[in-house]
């Protein structure tokens, strides 16, 4: 699909189709939805990190004037969760609360104040249980269990895989290095608080408007918990006021809004407070990591062994996938012939962790890229040259059976090294100043859906009006990244019209074909391919009619700027509208559908559902910074970042994603962290949860690398998540260049820098996880299907 280069629309810095509404303030976000007779609901949340619920009495609340309905957990007894393997949440807690903020009961009232007032009248008897607040806690205290599932104690999931003879690899090494790292948890902090409006109609059907990135998965959860046919439930995802992964789970408040509407026959709105958004969380897992690499003197890796321990918080969420992601993508950047991964995720009594931009991969990427600088230091190798010389070749199948297709990593690294002057600057910037480098990779969409099925991951439907207007229907959700615009650009390009001629209708389960949602950086590639297929199908009768009218072969036709013409004789032309009228006259109403499903992964081992993708994106980042030896304050002076985006469908939007990723990475490495004390979130507010402001944001030089990947629409890969990954280790590596000290944990706060300079910094410790027995995965043999054998050690 990457054959063309003479585009009208693709590759141009066009304005987003929804930009005018966004700047005019007319975009309807979920909390802007107002319906006649609408009630307002609030949820009572647990004040205890871990407790049994002995009783819930809502009678006093129900009696408060203005209260219309109350709701308790036993009215919604069916569990749900984003992954089929961890259906461990209830819309309102049934018999147990598992973190401060776990919802227990709800009230719908004529106004929000009354609902809030009524919460104080709900009597809940708790039997307080000891909380589990860290991985160490969870391992040391297997009882009481937070959940009654998982391999043992408070361990949620544990895995161990050998890919190749790792022991042999270490035996062949001239140098072996081990390091331990810790990545503190942090949260998405979208500017929009979650909000939902449920509306149950006299027809017995329910509609939900919600700030969700995944309306299809919310649809499934509602059908399950409300015990209604999916066909009677409509989920409309409003444009999200920022997501970053934080609105990717089905949430209790969405179910509660629907159930309260069913109980009252009136629309019910729930808008979360900022504090509640911190409790919804699903953000970055705190991860402790240990990494051991064997190398030849020249820097050739002989084997790598990686261990992770994830603090999952109170529920499963995407956690099983997050766990696998901490081990999946180490191998898709540089040559690692033998690889071993051990990982475990534990439950703790904190807000549940889940997917945040980069989902499970920023933590190990941070560890790996710092570790690379360290072993290069040991061996006297140049870290830039080591990376450039060790990048994978296109088409590589890695030790853990991940299929690399195009790879622009080498070019990304070369470009940021050249642009930043890394080679001349490293070690030479003077006291307190330094430069650092890192590379990275990310998926362009997960290769498998969340729940097992053989259907498309994305569908697009196109309807062409006889006046020339085109409507494009797709289940995708615009969370600010511009996915509505991508649909319009692609269809406009294929039909030879303008994006402004297109009406995009998205994220409505009644109206739009399923798209799995805005997660895993899947949308441009998957909806784009579906849109291409639909557009080419709907174009066919239009072009055929035009060809007959103009009396030229159809393959000689070209289209653009609302015209269709003969490439050999551009004077022979029709307007798009004329061609549409001819086609509709000939074949009837014009419409078509298209869909996309990722290619089957080559990987053959259990657990290989996480990591495969149609194609990986690649990034490289260089950071120059200044560090104050007295205060420990680190100021990032400049960032250079190159991203292999395959092809820019719209470079303006790609640069927006790249710059936003740099910003978010800088926040994570320097300041953002979740802090708990005795079960309480210490800083559930935007003031105290520090994030970068305009004053902290350095200049960023972004470089787009195009590899025209055959898997992507016009060659496009993802760009929304990958560019965050190299920023974090590049800062850590630059700090070492500046001060000669290593802070092997994130965030790198001034206190840690000062402690390191004073020789007081101890560094992170790896929790004492007993990983399960290793599964030795045999290498792929294309001729005979491989089988996984369990070996006991």
């Amino acid at each position, binding site marked *: 699909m990457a054959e063309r280069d003479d585009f009208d629309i693709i590759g141009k810095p066009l304005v987003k189709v929804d930009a005018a509404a966004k*700047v005019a*303030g007319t975009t309807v976000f979920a909390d802007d939805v107002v319906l006649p007779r609408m009630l307002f609901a609030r949820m009572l949340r647990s004040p205890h990190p871990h407790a049994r619920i002995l009783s819930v009495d809502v009678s006093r609340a129900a009696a408060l004037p203005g209260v219309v309905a109350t709701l308790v957990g036993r009215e919604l007894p069916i569990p749900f969760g984003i992954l089929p393997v961890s259906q461990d949440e209830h819309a309102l807690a049934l018999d147990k609360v598992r973190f401060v903020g776990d919802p227990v009961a709800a009230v719908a009232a004529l106004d929000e104040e009354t609902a809030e007032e009524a919460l104080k009248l709900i009597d809940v008897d708790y039997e307080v249980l000891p909380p589990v607040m860290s991985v160490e806690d969870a391992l040391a205290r297997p009882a009481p269990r937070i959940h009654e599932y998982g391999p043992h104690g408070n361990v949620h999931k544990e895995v161990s895989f050998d890919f190749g003879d790792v022991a042999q690899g270490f035996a062949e090494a001239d140098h072996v290095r081990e390091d331990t790292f810790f990545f503190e948890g942090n949260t998405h902090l979208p*500017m*929009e608080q979650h909000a939902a409006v449920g509306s149950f109609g006299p027809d017995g059907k329910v509609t939900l408007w919600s700030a969700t990135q995944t309306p299809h998965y919310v649809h499934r959860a509602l059908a399950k918990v409300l015990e209604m046919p999916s066909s009677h439930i409509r989920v409309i995802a409003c444009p*999200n006021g920022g997501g970053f992964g934080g609105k990717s789970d089905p949430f209790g408040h969405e179910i509660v809004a629907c159930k309260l509407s069913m109980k009252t026959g009136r629309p019910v709105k729930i808008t979360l407070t*900022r504090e509640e958004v911190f409790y919804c969380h699903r953000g970055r897992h705190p991860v402790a990591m240990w990494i051991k690499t064997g190398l030849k003197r020249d820097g050739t890796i002989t084997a790598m062994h990686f261990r992770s321990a994830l603090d999952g918080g109170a529920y499963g969420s995407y956690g099983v996938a997050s766990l696998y992601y901490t081990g999946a993508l180490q191998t898709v950047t540089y040559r690692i012939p033998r690889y071993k991964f051990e990982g475990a995720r534990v439950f703790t009594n904190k807000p549940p962790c889940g997917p945040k931009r980069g989902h499970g991969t920023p933590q190990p990427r941070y560890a790996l890229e710092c570790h690379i600088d360290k072993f290069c230091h040991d061996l006297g190798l140049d870290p830039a040259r080591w990376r450039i010389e060790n990048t994978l070749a296109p088409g590589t199948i890695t030790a853990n059976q991940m299929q690399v297709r195009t790879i622009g990593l080498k070019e990304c690294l070369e470009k940021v090294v050249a642009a930043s002057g890394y080679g001349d600057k490293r070690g030479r910037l003077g006291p307190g100043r330094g430069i650092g480098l890192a590379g990275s990779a990310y998926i362009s969409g997960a290769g498998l859906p969340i729940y097992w099925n053989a259907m498309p991951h994305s569908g697009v439907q196109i309807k062409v009006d006889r006046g020339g207007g085109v409507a494009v229907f797709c289940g995708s959700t615009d969370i600010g990244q511009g996915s509505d615009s991508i649909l319009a650009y692609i269809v406009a390009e294929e039909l030879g019209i303008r994006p402004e001629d297109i009406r995009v209708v998205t994220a409505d389960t009644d109206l739009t074909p399923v798209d799995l949602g805005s997660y895993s950086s899947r949308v441009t590639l998957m909806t784009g391919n579906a849109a291409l297929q639909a557009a080419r199908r709907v174009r066919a009768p239009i072009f055929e009619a035009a060809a007959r009218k103009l009396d030229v072969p159809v393959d000689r036709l070209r289209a653009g700027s609302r015209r269709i013409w003969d490439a050999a004789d551009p004077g022979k032309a029709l307007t798009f509208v004329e061609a549409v009228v001819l086609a509709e006259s000939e074949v009837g109403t014009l419409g078509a559908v298209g869909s996309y499903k990722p290619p089957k992964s080559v990987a053959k081992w259990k657990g290989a559902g996480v990591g495969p993708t149609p194609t990986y994106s690649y990034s490289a980042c260089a950071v120059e910074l200044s560090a104050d030896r007295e205060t420990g304050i680190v100021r990032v002076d400049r960032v250079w970042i190159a991203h292999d985006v395959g092809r820019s469908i719209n470079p303006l939007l790609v640069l927006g994603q790249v*710059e936003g990723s740099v910003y978010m990475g800088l926040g994570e490495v320097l300041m953002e962290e979740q802090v708990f004390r005795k079960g309480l979130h210490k800083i559930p507010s*935007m003031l105290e949860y520090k994030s970068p402001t305009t004053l902290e944001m350095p200049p960023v030089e972004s470089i787009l690398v195009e590899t025209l990947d055959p898997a992507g629409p016009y060659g496009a890969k993802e760009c929304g998540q990958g560019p965050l990954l190299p920023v974090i280790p590049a800062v850590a590596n630059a700090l070492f260049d500046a001060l000669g000290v290593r802070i092997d944990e994130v965030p790198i706060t001034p206190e840690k820098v000062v402690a390191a300079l004073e020789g007081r910094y101890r560094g992170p410790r790896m929790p004492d996880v007993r990983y399960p027995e290793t599964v030795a995965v045999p290498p792929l043999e294309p001729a005979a299907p491989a089988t996984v054998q369990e070996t006991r050690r």
Partner: protein
Amino acid sequence: MDKIRIRLKVNGEEREVLAPVHHTLLEVLREEMGLTGTKHGCELGECGTCTVLVGGRPVLSCLALPVECEGREVTTVEGLARDGVLHPLQQAFAELGAAQCGYCTPGFLLVADELLRHNPRPTRAQIAEALAGNLCRCTGYLKIFEAVELAVSRMGAAAGAAV
């Protein structure tokens, strides 16, 4: 709940509504007046999202009481465009991708509008300083800086042409 009569001049229009006495300017604008262009991110005065102009000065509407604003002109994002034509700042934000999710955008636009009224040719540092009370999680602020600068250049050119 006791309600009081609130008279405000909003976007050039005299408006009169009944609202609970403790309702904030944010709530009165969004709920009683239906001006949902003003957003909220924290309702605690921490994020800048709900910024409107009162008497030409940026005010966090989540911390302001309507009675404090009586007799003064309130400008919300709905008041920036004139006769269906976007303000140069809105146009520049749209063109340069300074609004990604767009949720923080109304607040940024109003603060930038106030900045340009007092300082028609701000430096990048002055723009950053003026906008430091507004959080944006999508853009990394860079496209916002560029959009303000583009609007400055266009407004300067327009003012020059008008002289």
